[in-house]
């Protein structure tokens, strides 16, 4: 689920941060810059794990802060293919279900990756798996276990220029990082089915 990624960056330490130790100031700056952000082809950055190398800082002409080159290890959320994960059902529709892990929401399980014999129940608004005469409902907010089929990175930078007035800005952009999952296998699906 989590990997360590080694990154190198040149970071700015503002004078207000000078009273912290150099390491702490750098860690705070790394988290401020990277935490909860997606790096293309890397994954979702969590927190800095540790610092590997800190170069001497330098002050540039006419600036009041220090620039420091630092090499560090970041904890990154990037599941591998076929990894099994647990989340909660966020929403359901005829095209499949959306799953959330709390800190990461962009997980979808398409209709063709539902267990054989499942269908979307339009009146209840949930998926139902008919198995040996039982009706197993995939209720919203229930814990669900799924397998990662694919990790999809979408290069969303640079931001597109906004044309026209602010109202025309689309409400949502496609996510830069999303997971496609499956629940076709014994043991997958709602946790309560297998207990």
């Amino acid at each position, binding site marked *: 689920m*989590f990997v360590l*990624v080694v990154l190198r960056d040149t970071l700015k330490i503002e004078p207000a941060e000078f009273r912290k130790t150099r390491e702490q100031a750098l860690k705070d700056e790394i988290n401020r810059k990277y935490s*909860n952000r997606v790096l293309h082809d890397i994954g979702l950055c969590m927190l800095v794990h540790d610092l590997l190398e800190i170069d001497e800082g330098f002050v540039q002409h006419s600036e009041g802060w220090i620039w420091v080159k630092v090499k560090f290890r970041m904890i990154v959320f990037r599941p591998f293919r076929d990894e*099994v994960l647990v989340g909660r059902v966020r929403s359901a529709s005829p095209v499949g279900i959306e799953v959330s892990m709390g800190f990461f929401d962009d997980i979808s399980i398409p209709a063709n990756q539902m267990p054989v014999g499942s269908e979307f129940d339009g009146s209840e608004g949930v998926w139902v798996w008919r198995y040996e005469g*039982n009706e197993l409902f995939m209720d919203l907010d229930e814990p669900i276990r799924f397998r990662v089929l694919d990790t999809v990175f979408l290069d969303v930078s640079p931001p597109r220029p906004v044309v026209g007035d602010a109202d025309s800005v689309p409400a949502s952009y496609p996510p830069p990082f999303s997971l496609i999952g499956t629940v076709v296998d014994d043991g*997958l699906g709602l946790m309560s089915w297998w207990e």
Partner: protein
Amino acid sequence: MEVVDRQAALISNYEALLVLREEDERHKESRPRSQTKYSENVTTLMFEALEYLNNTPCSSQSADQIIALKQQLGGLDLTKAEIMQIINHRPKSLVELHLIVEECDERFSVEELERIVETILETLPYGEAENDDGGDQNSDGMVVE
């Protein structure tokens, strides 16, 4: 920014949780009137990730338990990724173990698999699951007395 190594290591949920907890403690300790302000992206991520991980088996694990489990499973032909997932998920039944271990049936006998589950349950104790003795449940999920 430069990516030096896209994957230096896999780390377990437990190790990620340790870093999150440590950072959380530090945030709590900073006095409310101090000038230290943590940016919203950091606090949001920490809140959500802690909430998620605190509800998974890694919340009650310790470094000793994980080392012990790795030693006990070391003799078996399991891949690193499989051991990592065993630690994260703490499979408590054969069905769950099958999901994690690829081509389980060809690589291990049923007895071996049962022994793996037993080892996991012993080495990584985790609340709630223990008192579940598989009592009769009807399809509504209601316990039959």
